[in-house]
């Protein structure tokens, strides 16, 4: 129970920071202040909170879980591709989004699209696709909170109560603190995770008797030796993954965050240090995830290893439902928590659990972003702000925060977690496929609203198509693929144990390429915006 008490203290501190930030903003019931912290964040808060915004439960717990089952390849797949692509897109697109926001007062990406391409309802379509892809994130955040508190307390805090506490805490500081509160909480959480991540590696490493002996033991076993190489993942899959981080700049919460910097110079440190922050968090998570395979004296870990072994040896002869069951049993998302329970003293496990909680609670930015989008792109755009004023707009945003959090909590209690984990996978690919929109809006004079609409509709269609395909065709056993379409002797479409392959690549590749092609071709044959609008964006073309 001690670790759970430490986590509750941490949650109280988080609420205090959010409310403290709110007090700073008292008397300014302005939309820009609530939703964008008055575009006034300094370099330190900007770097750490932007980074923290991207570090979700899925990223932290999911990375160690993926590494537990797939090995060191996880770091190259998820972390290093992000370390190159995300700061690059922040450098190229984030700075321009910031400049447009400062010059023209934009608060959401859809506002930029509407102005850049002279469109109204097409912007609404983009809003709905963005919102549909963002909601699963918020739900999984609440689920992650419930699970973490449940595991840390040794089952004393039930899932429903843990989820409710986390939802209430996040809702409170987003409601009262808006962007300023969220940014400060994210900064605090990122520092916490960076510090405690280092402590976790040291404590767990010492507890295991040093990493060298653990690595030697992994190498000695034919079942675990491949975890120290990348042979469990194909090079096509590895290449495909480099498309996923394109999603970062297309995520509304990241684009909106780019609007909060006080000066453009604040992007400099963020761009340079972003890769280092990624390494500081992901390297320990991935390494510990792999090392967990040696901790056979923890029954839960042993059960996971056993389920994986059974799936590998008998998977081909088992029915699909049993394979799915074994896959769920072998999932390693709670690996880090189990290692902490095994090796850290109680008080330290609580502190480290609070660090993990910090990552789990990253859904705050998504809740605020959706609230900003709703009030700006729907409420204000369709006349609400004009009729009722800016104060009512901010109150509408706050009510939206409450309703959205309640919705996420109710759904989190009802639905199985695996559904939303899949939805998040689709969301990453979906947002990556939306990235040509922001790139075309900022860099290509010839882009049009019809090109944007075509790319958006394609994205929505592709996400639904992949989801339906994966729901219809059961996942095969490890090492096997179910080929569903062959073109010219080449496997065009296949169901793999981990998802879908299109010509051997992950679906994100054809999704991004298709979206970019549609944006290009449809824009070429449709009417461009007026010359004055184009000049507004490209007066000093770079």
């Amino acid at each position, binding site marked *: 129970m001690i670790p759970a008490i430490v986590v509750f203290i941490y949650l109280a501190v988080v609420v205090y920071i959010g409310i403290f930030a709110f007090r700073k903003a008292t008397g300014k019931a302005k939309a820009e202040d609530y939703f964008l912290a008055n575009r006034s964040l*300094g370099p330190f808060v900007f770097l750490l909170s932007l980074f923290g915004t991207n570090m979700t439960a899925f990223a932290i717990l999911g990375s160690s879980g993926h590494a537990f089952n797939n090995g*060191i390849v996880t770091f*190259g797949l998820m972390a290093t591709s992000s370390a190159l692509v995300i700061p690059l897109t922040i450098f190229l697109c984030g700075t*321009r989004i910031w*400049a447009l926001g400062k010059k023209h007062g934009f608060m959401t990406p859809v506002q930029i699209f509407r102005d850049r391409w002279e469109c109204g309802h097409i912007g609404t379509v983009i809003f709905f696709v963005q919102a549909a892809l963002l909601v699963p994130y918020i739900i999984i955040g609440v689920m992650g909170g419930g699970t973490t508190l449940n595991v840390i307390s040794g089952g004393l805090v039930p899932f429903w109560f843990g989820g409710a506490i986390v939802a209430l805490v996040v809702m409170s500081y987003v409601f009262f603190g808006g962007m300023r509160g969220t940014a400060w909480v994210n900064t605090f959480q990122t520092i916490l995770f960076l510090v405690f991540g280092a402590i976790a590696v040291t404590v767990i490493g010492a507890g295991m008797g040093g*990493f060298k002996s653990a690595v030697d033991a992994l190498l000695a076993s034919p079942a675990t030796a491949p975890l120290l190489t990348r*042979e469990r993942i194909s090079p096509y899959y590895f290449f495909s993954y480099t498309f996923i981080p394109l999603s970062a700049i297309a995520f509304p919460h990241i684009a909106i965050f780019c609007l909060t910097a*006080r000066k453009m110079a604040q992007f400099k440190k963020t761009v340079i240090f972003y890769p*280092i922050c990624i390494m500081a968090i992901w390297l320990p998570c991935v390494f510990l995830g792999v090392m967990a395979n040696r901790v056979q004296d923890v029954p839960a870990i042993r059960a996971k290893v056993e389920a994986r072994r059974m799936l590998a040896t008998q998977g081909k002869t088992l029915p699909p439902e049993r394979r799915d069951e074994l896959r769920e049993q072998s999932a390693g998302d709670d690996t880090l928590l189990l290692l902490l329970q095994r090796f850290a003293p109680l008080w330290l496990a609580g502190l480290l659990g609070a660090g993990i909680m910090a990552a789990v609670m990253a859904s705050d930015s998504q809740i605020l972003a959706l609230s900003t989008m709703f009030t700006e792109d729907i409420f204000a755009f369709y006349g609400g702000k004009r009729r009722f004023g800016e104060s009512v707009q901010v109150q509408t945003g706050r009510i939206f925060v409450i309703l959205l959090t309640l919705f996420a909590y109710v759904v989190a209690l009802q639905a199985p977690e695996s559904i939303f984990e899949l939805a998040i996978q689709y969301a990453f690919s979906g947002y990556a496929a939306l990235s040509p929109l922001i790139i075309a809006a900022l860099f290509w004079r010839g882009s049009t609203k019809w090109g944007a609409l075509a790319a958006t509709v394609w994205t929505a269609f592709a996400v639904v198509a992949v989801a339906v395909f994966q729901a219809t065709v059961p996942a095969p056993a490890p090492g096997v693929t179910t080929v569903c379409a062959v073109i010219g002797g080449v496997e065009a479409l296949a169901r793999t144990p981990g998802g879908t392959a299109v010509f051997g690549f992950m679906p994100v590749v054809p999704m991004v390429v298709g979206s970019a092609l549609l944006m290009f071709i449809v824009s070429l044959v449709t009417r461009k915006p007026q010359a004055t609008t184009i000049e507004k964006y490209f007066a000093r073309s770079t």
Partner: protein
Amino acid sequence: MKRLLLTLVVIALYVLHQDIWNWRRVYPMAFGFIPVGLWYHACFVVAAALVMWMLVTYAWPSHLEEEVEGRVPEKKEDAR
């Protein structure tokens, strides 16, 4: 010319990310326990940070900064 070189550096880094030559190798191990495939990518992250520093130093879009800061005065009361 400077932009072309920087573009080539970024493309080279992207290509270096696909280190298929390390696919099935474990050795040499850094510090005796980090497999080469993991160590390579840790070094890759440091290289990415260096390339980002080069971009910020030699290709910073300062015209955007000038345009905006010419229009919007700095809000000192909100500085954090």
